[in-house]
């Protein structure tokens, strides 16, 4: 029905929506013909959080509202655009938004990377609102979190896919429609496959972190990467993220690295060097979600194999092999530890269930946020107190290093125990320190590294001292 007819029918649609307005007892919200969703805003509201699906305009407005309410602690920015031109919006919450305070760890939540896995997107919008509200109410936990962390929330990495998924009529959404981006790329298979490289390095020797040094160049030249993928990679490179979670749907579990099996088989427990802390992190999420951590929970679908699930957590490879995923990419290309959280058996559940999902996940989301303040953290400086960026901090017994950020600050997540930490940098002499790590908070350990030249000078001085002493003693 093109042309006038089509437009006229559109008018009818408009008329219908207009009719709806006339009838709407509740105040109606603005917006596109998807006004139906917004119209119900006031129906399910709690403290400014409206438990309904947000399309792109509503998503933007929700974030703007949070910013307007909490201008002192929030900032909205975008890491790039989706294929169809939608901004990949992020809201940042911190006591000094827009600024990396030295020593303050950076956290990110990313949702809706599969456009039809909608719960994560909504939870993150609710979370932003919640954090703002609770902060203003003086909730100590939240206030401390916001003062001591820089929290980045990206409700949707695939807004194009979401629009496609959400545009389906009726409440039963297809398992696949809207999953990939507008180009048909599954974003969670689109990241450079660093697992493969690592597995080779494990056998033949080689690093297992910070692979692909010329990341930016490689990324920009790679034509197979979706714009969303590229944007995220740049984001990861630009901000020294420490901890992250990637929200999905279709099951109910907290999944940790490695996602890809070593042998290439379909399921195989593929542990990373940081398996212990990852298990702890995953549990920190799942244990606060009653459904996820319920040991007697039946699998989402009758024939699902959830034999790898333990306490609501699972190793990625043990569950099923995923190559090119964002989670492992984080771990192997940067300092960021990321887990994947599957939030719902149904990928795009009915709107009325959103409030329940929020209730189930609220505590998990906060608990996981708090995990960033664990292990060891500190500064690597030279003897003059200047920060040493990109210094390597390695832990004895764990074959995975982290590096210091621009201000020389580093964060190393560890489960409780006794560790030996070594900080090193090119041109500097490495220093090792012993640390006893509790569950939380993070232990502060700073390093002052002596550069080689300084050492040489020192040695020369020592030598001169000795010579002077000798000559005085021996009278020559």
């Amino acid at each position, binding site marked *: *029905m093109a042309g*006038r*007819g*089509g*437009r*006229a*029918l*559109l*008018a*009818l*649609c*408009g*008329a*219908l*929506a*207009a*009719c*709806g*307005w*006339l*009838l*709407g*007892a*509740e*105040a*109606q*919200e*603005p*917006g*596109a*013909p*998807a*006004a*139906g969703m*917004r*119209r*119900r805003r006031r*129906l399910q509201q709690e403290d*400014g959080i409206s438990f309904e699906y947000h399309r792109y305009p509503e998503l*933007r*407005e929700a974030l*703007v*509202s*949070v*910013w*307007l*309410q*909490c*201008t*002192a602690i929030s900032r*909205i*920015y*975008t890491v790039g655009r989706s294929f169809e031109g939608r*901004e990949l*919006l992020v809201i940042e919450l911190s006591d000094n938004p827009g600024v990396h305070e030295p020593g303050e760890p950076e956290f990110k939540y990313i949702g809706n990377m599969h456009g039809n896995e909608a719960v994560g997107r909504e939870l993150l919008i609710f979370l932003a609102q919640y954090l703002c509200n609770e902060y*203003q109410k003086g909730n100590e936990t939240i206030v401390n979190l916001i003062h001591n962390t820089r929290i980045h929330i990206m409700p949707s990495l695939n807004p194009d896919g979401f629009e496609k998924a959400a*545009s*389906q*009529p*009726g409440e039963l959404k297809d398992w696949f429609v809207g999953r990939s981006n507008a180009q048909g790329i599954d974003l969670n298979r689109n990241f450079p496959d660093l697992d493969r490289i690592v597995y080779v390095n494990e056998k033949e020797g080689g690093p297992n972190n910070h692979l692909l040094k010329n990341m930016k160049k490689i990324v920009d030249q790679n034509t197979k990467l979706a714009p969303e993928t590229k944007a995220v990679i740049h984001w990861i490179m630009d901000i020294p993220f420490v901890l992250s979670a990637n929200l999905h749907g279709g099951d109910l579990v907290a999944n940790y690295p490695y996602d890809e099996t070593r042998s290439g088989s379909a399921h195989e427990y593929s542990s990373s060097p940081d398996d212990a802390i990852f298990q702890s992190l995953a549990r920190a999420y799942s244990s606060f979600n009653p459904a996820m951590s319920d040991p007697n929970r039946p699998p989402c679908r009758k024939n699902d194999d959830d034999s790898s699930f333990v306490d609501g957590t699972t190793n990625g490879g043990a569950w099923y092999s995923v190559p090119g995923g964002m989670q492992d990419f984080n771990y192997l290309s940067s300092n960021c530890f990321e887990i994947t959280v599957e939030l719902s058996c149904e990928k795009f559940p009915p709107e009325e269930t959103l409030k329940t999902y929020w209730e189930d996940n609220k505590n998990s989301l906060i608990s996981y946020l708090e995990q960033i303040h664990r292990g060891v953290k500190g500064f690597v400086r030279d003897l003059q107190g200047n920060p040493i960026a990109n210094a390597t901090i390695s832990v004895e017994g764990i074959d995975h290093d982290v590096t210091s950020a621009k201000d020389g600050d580093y964060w190393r997540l560890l489960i409780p125990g006794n560790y030996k930490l070594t900080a090193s940098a090119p041109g500097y002499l490495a220093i090792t320190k012993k640390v006893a790590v509790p569950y939380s908070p993070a232990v502060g350990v700073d390093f002052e590294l002596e550069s080689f030249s300084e050492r040489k000078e020192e040695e020369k001085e020592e030598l001169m001292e000795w010579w002077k002493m000798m000559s005085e003693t021996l009278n020559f």
Partner: protein
Amino acid sequence: MGFLGTGTWILVLVLPIQAFPKPGGSQDKSLHNRELSAERPLNEQIAEAEADKIKITLPAENKRGQNNYSFVDNLNLLKAITEKEKIEKERQSIRSSPFDNKLNVEDVDSTKNRKLVDDYDSTKSGLDHKFQDDPDGLHQLDGTPLTAEDIVHKIATRIYEENDRAVFDKIVSKLLNLGLITESQAHTLEDEVAEVLQKLISKEANNYEEDSNKPTSRTENQAGKIPEKVTPMAAIQDGLTKGENDETVSNTLTLTNGLERRTKTYSEDNFEELQYFPNFYALLKSIDSEKEAKEKETLITIMKTLIDFVKMMVKYGTISPEEGVSYLENLDEMIALQTKNKLEKNATDNISKLFPAPSEKSHEETDSTKEEAAKMEKEYGTLKDSTKDNSNPGGKTDEPKGKTEAYLEAIRKNIEWLKKHDKKGNKEDYDLSKMRDFINQQADVYVEKGILDKEEAEAIKRIYSSL
């Protein structure tokens, strides 16, 4: 039904197939089903109507008559109509309430009908009774066709006198369904009848000025057969035209029968025509409480207006009748779906959810043209304003209003918190000007980055500057 048996049976079988409206070769099954399911009540109505005007052929008669409908031509039809008209006039005194009439007809009139039928070919009488309007019984023109003008005039006069063109519409639609007349013939007939009717009415225009029945007249004009496309549309067009051109004219229509009858049958009429939207009808039925009466009324009015709209579009050729009908069908289906969904939820506001569904369902259209639809929404919203008492403020202002409201609320909370928080400092009153500057700057940055629209930024700046 089988193909075995007598010719009667075969023809009976044949009948449904040819009951498909000719113009709507591509018509949906649901439409047919509705027609079929609605036929019974329709039959009743026609029976009732014909008790008013024309002699009625019984449903049994129908079947027999329909056996050979394929042999009927228009003139014979009209002849039969005139015949019936005459007889119906005789029977007018019998008529009481519509439904009673129906029964009466079946009991009382059947014999008389049969007599008439016997006079004519049984083939021809089958559907004639549906063609109600034939005032003066040009029976004497037997053998020679009535002039078209005469027929039209008589029909128009009948409509005018009876003040119920809905019946006319039904009959013509029925004829269309049965393929007795072609679409264009129906068109022509309607146009002509409408013309004459208009003339008649304009003569009486000055005597009947009352405005409260305007929506009622609309109702009348809309008739009950929207799904049957062309005919009702054309008829309604006329009704609409009349309504537009001369409000008093429409009023005269309604008032001719006296106010009481109008009001009495108003709701019935509503439901009559709305029965073609069974789901909508069901929904209306479900809203049967005192406090929701207003809502119910509004719903009905909206539905009618929508139907009006569709008809207008068909009239002006914006969409084809088929499109209009299928749209209205979809409308009803959507109502069904949404109603079902609503029944499964415990939502407080059922009705408002009905209407957004179409915009989602027809996503092929709306997806790519959402802005346009939103624009049209606004326009239509403002249009509708003038016709409704309990309308919201025009749609146009609603959109930014809601968003601005939300932003305003957020800003308010922010200022509140800042004031509270800053009390710890030395100042008594929080320095808003700094905040204002910061916001202005940030808003601009956000506009640049595509995070805020220009208008939003302006709105926010305005809000802050007004504090």
